[in-house]
């Protein structure tokens, strides 16, 4: 394991500057409610504007509507969007991982059908992985797809499916070979592309978040027919296809910028006043840690561009970064030491209230920190992950 230090090139800095100019023009501070990193709002028009700039599906091939850009280019765009709290939710999953999976494992027909729309910011994806009895032990999923004429019949239930009500399709991990007793449960899984809103037998319903907001969904399948052309890659190889993409999902800026817009707003509201010693020191600690973690995260992106699959490194970064986010929220609450409300007069206090309510999810979503530790520690000990 080695994180090689890297810096942005002149071209990458020019891209950063373009993104900053775009955001300053589109979303001047005070004109919108900043989101908390990737939990930001879903806004199809905004996703379209980003796509018009070539900032969605950046690393996908030009042949399929992409831009042949690097993982670092995408890093530069994404970090600016997230720290701004821009409404990126609609294209988020498609841009971060589904496009990559289809590009890597999908058929040409699937690439033609999905990638240009993803790159145009016109297709939002959700992820169908967890089930009522399968969370961290993801390979134990039981929602099954059985062979039928020209396709598969799906029965079962997926839960915690974020933003399925706002997105168009979802990529779903299903069992296509029954698990024999004593068999390897990582075998016999397959990835399917399923239309969320236009599939007979598919039922979609909300699982209200602890504060009543609608992010999570339950998706149930009753004899749902999925045609063969919507299976991604090789049937039975879904686990491997899924895990190879984890490096993209795990070490990025979405894991350490959720609280940034809140801290920026703290500073904005303090401008022109004398800041207390504790506020100054906390700002210093946070800025320093963001600097440090960003260097590690950028190094992971550079490793991806040089052909590596830094899964241990990205797990280490995500585990550390999401814990840092939670510690930051705790320290901010201690710092302001006041009754918090989502209806506060202060935008900073509104954002901090939202951080408090949603923060625990940061160390759970996309793989709990306990699972990440298990992956990372196997890597440190030279054991198979």
């Amino acid at each position: 394991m080695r994180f090689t230090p890297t810096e942005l090139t002149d071209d990458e800095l020019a891209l950063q500057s373009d993104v900053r100019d775009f955001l300053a023009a589109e979303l001047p501070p005070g004109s919108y409610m900043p989101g908390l990193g990737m939990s930001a709002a879903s806004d199809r028009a905004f996703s379209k504007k980003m796509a018009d700039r070539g900032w969605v599906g950046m690393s996908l091939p030009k042949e399929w509507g992409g831009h042949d850009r690097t993982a670092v280019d995408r890093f530069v765009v994404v970090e600016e969007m997230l720290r701004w709290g821009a409404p990126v939710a609609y294209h988020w999953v498609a841009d971060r991982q589904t496009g990559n999976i289809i590009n890597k494992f999908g058929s040409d027909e699937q690439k033609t059908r999905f990638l240009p729309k993803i790159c145009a910011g016109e297709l939002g994806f959700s992820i169908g992985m967890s089930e009522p009895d399968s969370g961290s032990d993801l390979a134990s999923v039981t929602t099954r797809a059985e062979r039928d004429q020209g396709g598969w019949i799906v029965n079962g239930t997926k839960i915690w499916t974020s933003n399925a009500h706002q997105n168009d399709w979802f990529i779903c991990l299903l069992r296509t070979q029954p698990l024999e007793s004593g068999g390897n449960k990582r075998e016999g899984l397959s990835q399917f592309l399923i239309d969320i809103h236009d599939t007979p037998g598919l039922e979609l319903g909300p699982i209200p978040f602890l504060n009543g907001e609608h992010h999570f969904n339950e998706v149930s399948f009753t004899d749902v027919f999925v045609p063969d052309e919507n299976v991604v890659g090789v049937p039975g190889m879904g686990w491997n296809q899924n895990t190879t993409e984890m490096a993209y999902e795990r070490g990025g800026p979405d894991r350490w910028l959720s609280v940034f817009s809140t801290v920026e707003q703290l500073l904005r509201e303090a401008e022109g006043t004398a800041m207390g010693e504790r506020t100054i020191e906390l700002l210093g600690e946070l800025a320093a840690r963001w600097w440090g973690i960003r260097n590690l995260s950028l190094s992971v992106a550079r490793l991806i561009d040089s052909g590596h699959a830094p899964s241990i490194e990205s797990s280490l970064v995500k585990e550390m970064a999401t814990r840092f986010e939670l510690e930051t929220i705790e320290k901010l609450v201690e710092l302001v030491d006041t009754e918090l409300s989502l209806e506060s007069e202060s935008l900073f206090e509104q954002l901090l209230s939202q951080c408090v309510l949603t923060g625990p999810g940061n160390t759970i979503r996309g793989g709990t920190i306990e699972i990440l530790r298990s992956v990372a520690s196997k890597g440190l000990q030279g054991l198979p992950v």
Partner: protein
Amino acid sequence: MTVDALITETADRLFGRLCTHDAVQAAEEGGGAPEIWEAFTETGFAWISLPEEAGGSGGTLEDALEVLRLAGYHAAPIPAAENGILGGWLLASAGLELPEGIVTVAPGTARDTLKVADDGTVTGSVEMVPWGRGAERLAVVCGGVVASIPVEAAVVETKMSLAGEPRDTLTFDGAPADVVDAPVGVDSRALRFRGALSRVALMGGAIEKMSQLTVSYTNEREQFGRPVARFQAVQQHLVWAAQDAALARMAAEAAGAAASRGEAGFEIAAAKLNTNQAATRATKACHQAHGAMGMTQEYPLHHYSRRLWSWRTEYGGTTEWAKWVGEAVAAQGADGLYPAITGGSAALI
């Protein structure tokens, strides 16, 4: 800029051969390790990054920091930082002669009373001087001058850091010194940042070694019929230590790269702050994973953990640097906060 692999290999081999557990232990008991120092000087590493025309070995600041990282990795009980990028730098920048023997430096504590008189003599005391007792010259920067003072003129009160390394008090009474006006950019602030950078490099190496020791120990140590590394509660310590090793090394290398280019106040301050906190977390995790064995003199963990506890407070503890970074970013205002994090010193207004 990258460091020539030959430097890494040579320093790693040299320290690995000399800094055995027994040798490091003996240095602590004897207050120095003359034979390790001699071998170190024979390679030329003692003056790395100091210009050849000043009597140094040439090379870049990043080369010197790589040697320091490996000194930290092997707990080398020698004043590598003091003689090179700190004391040696002060003398070489001021055009003062580098001595045959060791040059150390007064890091500057609140209790120091040393004054340089107009006639070029020095009077007063300086504390926490690394390896003061074994040095030939003491380099100081104060009151707009750089002075090179013969240590033989000092009354030396021997003291130790938490790691058992010499941190002596030197008292002078009208001692003769070589004194010159400090050149632009050479002052106590610059020394404090360079000192912090030296500690960050040493600490990055020590945390990495400690993390590796902990992985091997927990794989060998068996309890309940299996290696303790098989337990998730122990794995968490392995992961946390590895993260802090990565964070500290990255901070050291990024700050070193920035310092080689020019103004690097933000990067050095952020690096020392991150590394101090990383040292706190990693020593806790590694000690916990080692159990009672890590608390003994016979097992080497303490060579690294005690050095980290010592270096963590040298050239600025967590609060000092948090305040520095906090004031620097607060001055940027809300719109400048993220550009400061991505752009560092170059982006500060």
